[in-house]
C-alpha cells in the first residue's frame, strides 16, 4: 500500500511539476497567453469547410471561433479554435482523428488490473488532465 501511495504521489508530483513549470514559463515568456489552439489535419481545406464535414466539427464551429487555412508544403489544413478550455481541444483532436484514421481512438473501457482505492479516486481526474493537458 505504501508503494501505491508513493507511486500516486510520484504521479501527482510529476503533474504538479509540469504545471508549475508551465506556469513559470507562461509568465515569463508569454505575457499574453495564446488564445487559439491550432493543429494540422492531413486533408484539403474543402473537406473541413464543405457540407460533408464531420458533425462534431460543424458543432465546434457553431460554438467557437474556428479558422481554417492551407498548411504550407502541401501538409494539409491548419485548423485553430479560439478557446482556453480543454474540452474544445479534445473535440478538435477527435475531428483530426476521424478524418485521418476514420475513427476516434478509445482507451476507456479496456481491461486493467486491480485499481486501489487511491487509484480509483485519482485516476479519472488524472486521465482527464493527461488527455486535455494542463490549462
Amino acid at each position, binding site marked *: 500500500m505504501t508503494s501505491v501511495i*508513493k507511486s500516486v504521489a510520484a504521479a501527482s508530483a510529476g503533474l504538479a511539476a509540469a504545471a508549475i513549470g508551465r506556469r513559470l514559463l507562461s509568465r515569463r515568456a508569454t505575457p499574453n497567453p495564446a488564445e487559439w489552439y491550432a493543429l494540422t489535419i492531413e486533408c484539403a481545406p474543402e473537406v473541413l469547410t464543405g457540407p460533408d464535414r464531420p458533425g462534431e466539427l460543424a458543432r465546434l464551429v457553431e460554438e467557437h471561433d474556428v479558422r481554417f487555412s492551407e498548411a504550407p508544403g502541401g501538409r494539409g489544413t491548419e485548423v485553430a479554435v479560439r478557446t482556453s478550455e480543454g474540452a474544445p481541444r479534445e473535440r478538435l483532436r477527435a475531428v483530426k482523428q476521424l478524418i485521418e484514421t476514420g475513427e476516434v481512438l478509445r482507451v476507456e473501457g479496456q481491461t486493467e488490473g486491480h485499481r486501489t482505492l487511491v487509484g480509483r479516486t485519482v485516476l479519472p481526474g488524472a486521465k482527464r488532465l493527461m488527455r486535455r493537458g494542463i490549462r
Partner: protein
Amino acid sequence: MKAVCWTGINEVSVEDVPEPGLLNRRDAIVKIIASATCGSDLHLIDGYVPTMMAGDILGHEFLGEIVEVGPDVRDRRVGERVVVCSIIGCGGCHYCRQEMYSLCDNSNPNPGFLETLIGHATAGIFAYSHALGGYAGSHAEYVRVPFVDVNAFPVPEGVSDSNAVFASDAVPTGWMGADIAGVGPGDVVAVWGCGGVGQMAMLAAKLMGAERVIGIDRFPERLAMTEKRIGAETIDYEKTDLLGTLKEMTGGRGPDVCIEAVGMEGHGTGAQYAFDRTKQALRLQTDRGLPLRQAIHACRKGGTVSVMGVYLGFVDKFPMGAVMNKGLTLRSGQQHGQRYIPMLLDRMAKGEIDAAHLETHPMGLDDGPRGYEMFKRKEDGCVRAVFYPDR
C-alpha cells in the same frame, strides 16, 4: 485471464483481469504467444515514469495469433501469427505517411502530459504509462491492438517464436539506431549497452557494412554473448579506461558512429556517476546521462551520435560544447518499427538475423514477478525474460 501488472514502485504481481474486447473498428484481439521484458520497462517499474497507475498491465514487445478483428480491418486475418510493433501508428497522419510512426499524431489518446513536458505528444506505446496512451500491455493472455493493419505483421513460417518476438522492438530499435546514423562500409561503430537493443544495433551495423563494431558493457556474460553471437569486439568499462581505450582502438580518431542503447538509468563509474545517481534519486534530474556524455565525448569529429536508450525528461551537464565544436550530428527517436519490421522478418527467414539468443529465460506468466526481478538484477546471466502464457 492472467496478466502481469505493475502494482507500485518496484512491485509487480500476477492478477486475474477481464479479457480485452474490441473498442474501435480497426482493432484486433491478439492471443499472446510470447511477450518479452524490455529494459525500458524497468524505468516504469522503478517509478521514474510518473504516470504509471497501480493495476496497469505491463509488456510491449510481443508476438501472438489474431483471434478477432474489427469490422474495418482490411488486411489482417483471424488465425495469422503476427508480431506487433511496440509503438502504435495510425497510418493516416502526416508522420505515419512519412514512415515516422513513433511520432504519430493520433495514437496517443492522452497527449496533454507530453505536450506540457516536451512540447508535443508522440505516439502511443503499449503499456508505457498513461502519458503514452495508457494502453493495456501484452504480459497477458490476450491484448487489444489498435489500427491492426498498420501495426501487426505476419511472421514467415520457419521463423521461431523466440526469434520473431524481438522483431517487435529490440531488432527494429537496434536497426534504426544504425540506420539513422547512416552507418556504412568502413565505419567504426561503438555501441553503449550489450542488452537486446545494443546487440541488435551491432548486428545491424555489421549488416550495413561497418568494418569494426565495438560493444561496451560491464556484465561479463553479456560481453561474452556479444562477442560470440554478434562477432563484435567488446570493452568492459569497469576494467579499463573506456574513453582512452576507444581512442587507442581507433587510431586516435574515435568511433565514426556512437550508438547509445542504455537510457535514463545508465550505469558508470567514478564521481560523475555517483553524483548523477544522487541527483536522480532526489529527483533533481529526471534522467542519468553518463553513457550519453561518454558517447558524445568519444565520437570522432564530425561523427554521429545515435540515441536509442529511453530518456524521459532532463539530463544535467549535457556536453553541448562537444556537440557544437566537434560538429557532431545527434540523431534519436523511439523506433519507427513499422518501417523496418517486414524487411527484418525477411532477413530472419533468410537466417541473416537471429535474435533468439536474447531470450535467456523463457517462462510462464505466473513467473512474471520473478522474471522481472532476474532481468533487473541480471541474475543467472538474464538478458531477456520472455513470458509464454501457454507454458
